[in-house]
């Protein structure tokens, strides 16, 4: 009987022939916590005298959620992570280095590996053909200390995407469309496997956007087969030797197969207060916005910033709108400086903040006022997400966000992207490359 990607990876890590539904204890390659979950992780393993790292050089502690720290309680929480790193030899990713999920794909996770992270969007690394899943502080604490985790092998939904995304439509629109289709709990406990012609030709940046949001449909993981595009990415990050081809068997058993025609996907937005509360941009009229946020582990990569910069070049952000741009990592920030993108953002009127989670988690740097509306490229718009339960959060692609920052209301980027000759317009092949 054929196997899905997740059955292969978990089987390899538990030295067993496993199928969906089995319970196993599996070896873990990479573990990660962040400043919101890490202090509790460390306290939990201290309580049982297990303050150790089984594999310190692949245990990474990220200071990204509240960084730079906005208050003393959080500064003290950061100290707990720094102390643990010193004691155990685990790696510390300091303030300014970037969002954990971006840093994990850049430098740590390889095809065929298992990553468990104390952050729900750990599934991002699944785009590398790794089994990457988010868990709580205690699970990850035990995984750090012992190098193992218990897992139920998930059933898999095969998400087959064929056809070309239209100009102005990106991977973010595709994944918002999918979450709207199967709903926020449609894939609870399941693994998603993204495949088809569209995925085969998709850049790693766009693949990461898809995998990142698997959890928004309730999924445990969002996997993509590794291929020559994965290999090129690893080479670009100095890890070409870590490439392995990870594929599903043609006769693998899937619980459900969902087919999407990418050419029919339109720019899509999630409305308050649920990710699955989706609408296409052309269905939304005159929704005025107070803040636009471009960044995060979903859409803060260089490819996303290029799209935003091409729309914002020689333009001004609407006078009623604040624009916040946060590169997802230090390397992205440096590249954006090199390419002149940061200058474009600042000249357009944006605030550019240090790499990290930025305003997405509602801790600092862009908290909404009462009844204010934010359009963000992040992955979540739950009530209170951006620090104020009275705030209204819409989610979109970087193209929709950047164009809307200029118009002052949620706007359809195809208005400027279907006519390649008009000024400041970018042809957007990079979405399809």
């Amino acid at each position, binding site marked *: 009987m054929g196997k899905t990607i997740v059955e292969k990876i978990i089987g390899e890590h538990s030295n067993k022939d496993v199928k969906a539904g089995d319970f196993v204890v599996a070896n873990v390659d990479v573990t990660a916590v962040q400043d*919101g979950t890490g202090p509790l992780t460390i306290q939990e393993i201290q309580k049982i005298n297990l303050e150790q790292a089984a594999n310190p050089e692949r245990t990474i502690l990220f200071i990204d959620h509240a960084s730079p720290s906005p208050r003393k309680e959080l500064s003290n929480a950061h100290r707990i992570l720094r102390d643990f790193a010193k004691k155990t030899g685990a790696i510390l990713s300091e303030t300014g280095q970037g969002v954990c999920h971006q840093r994990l794909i850049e430098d740590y996770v390889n095809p065929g590996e298992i990553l468990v992270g104390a952050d729900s969007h*750990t599934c991002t690394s699944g785009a590398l053909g790794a089994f990457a899943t988010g868990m709580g502080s205690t699970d990850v604490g035990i995984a750090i200390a012992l190098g193992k985790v218990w897992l139920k092998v998930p059933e898999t939904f095969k998400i087959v995407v064929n056809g070309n995304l239209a100009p102005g439509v990106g991977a973010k629109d595709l994944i918002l469309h999918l979450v709207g289709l199967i709903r926020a709990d449609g894939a609870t406990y399941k693994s998603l496997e993204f495949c088809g012609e569209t995925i085969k030709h998709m850049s790693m940046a766009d693949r990461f956007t898809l995998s990142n949001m698997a959890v928004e449909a309730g999924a445990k993981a969002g996997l993509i087969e590794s291929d020559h595009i994965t290999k090129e990415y690893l080479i670009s990050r100095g890890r070409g030797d870590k490439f392995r081809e990870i594929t599903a068997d043609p006769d693998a058993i899937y619980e459900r197969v969902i087919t999407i025609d990418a050419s029919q996907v339109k720019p899509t937005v999630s409305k308050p207060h649920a990710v699955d509360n989706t609408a296409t941009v052309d269905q939304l009229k005159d929704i005025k916005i107070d803040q636009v946020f471009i960044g995060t582990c979903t859409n803060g990569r260089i490819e996303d910033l290029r799209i935003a910069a091409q729309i914002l070049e020689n333009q001004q952000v609407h006078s009623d709108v604040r624009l916040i741009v946060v590169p997802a990592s230090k390397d992205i920030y440096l590249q954006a400086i090199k390419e002149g993108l940061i200058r474009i953002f600042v000249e357009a009127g944006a605030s550019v903040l240090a790499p990290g989670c930025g305003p997405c988690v509602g801790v600092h740097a862009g908290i909404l006022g009462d009844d204010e509306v934010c359009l963000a490229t992040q992955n979540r718009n*739950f009530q209170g997400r951006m620090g104020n339960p009275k705030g209204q959060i819409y989610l979109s692609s970087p193209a929709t966000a950047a164009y809307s920052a200029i118009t002052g209301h949620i706007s359809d980027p195809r208005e400027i992207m279907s006519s390649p000759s008009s000024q400041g317009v970018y042809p957007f092949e990079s979405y399809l490359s």
Partner: protein
Amino acid sequence: MEIKKGKAWKFGDDISTDHIAPGRLFHLRTNLPEFAKHVLEDAREDFASGMSQGDFVVAGKNFGLGSSREHAPQIIKLAGVNGVMAKSFARIFFRNAINIGLLVIECDTDKINEGDELEVSLKEGVVKNKTTGEDIAITPLPDVMIKILNDGGLAKHIEKHGDFQLV
């Protein structure tokens, strides 16, 4: 495991970890007793101040979706809630709750109204609604999770056995 009794506080579908343990109180993550005073306040303002020790949180589908923050089940437990009942749970929240020893029960919560007196018998696998007189079946937990619960949570399981003794 002993029988647990308490009153029902009803919540809707899709109660997220941002409702339970909001990001605006991120700084209280290292002060859980204080954080517990705000539990679920963005979903129901009257809950944290109005609940009595032993009451139950009774919700619709997909309870606990969103962030992996284990502080969410931690502060529900610390507030003195006996357990959470829902039609379904989000994966990470469910696992976290078991790991820290918070009772989570999947059952048909349409059969429970606000204020109903409830009694949980895990041995019989039912929630007894004392107000309506109806017994509501509980979806059984996998063996692995029962072992963790019986040891008092995952950390205690590891402390007791020195390793995983689950499968």
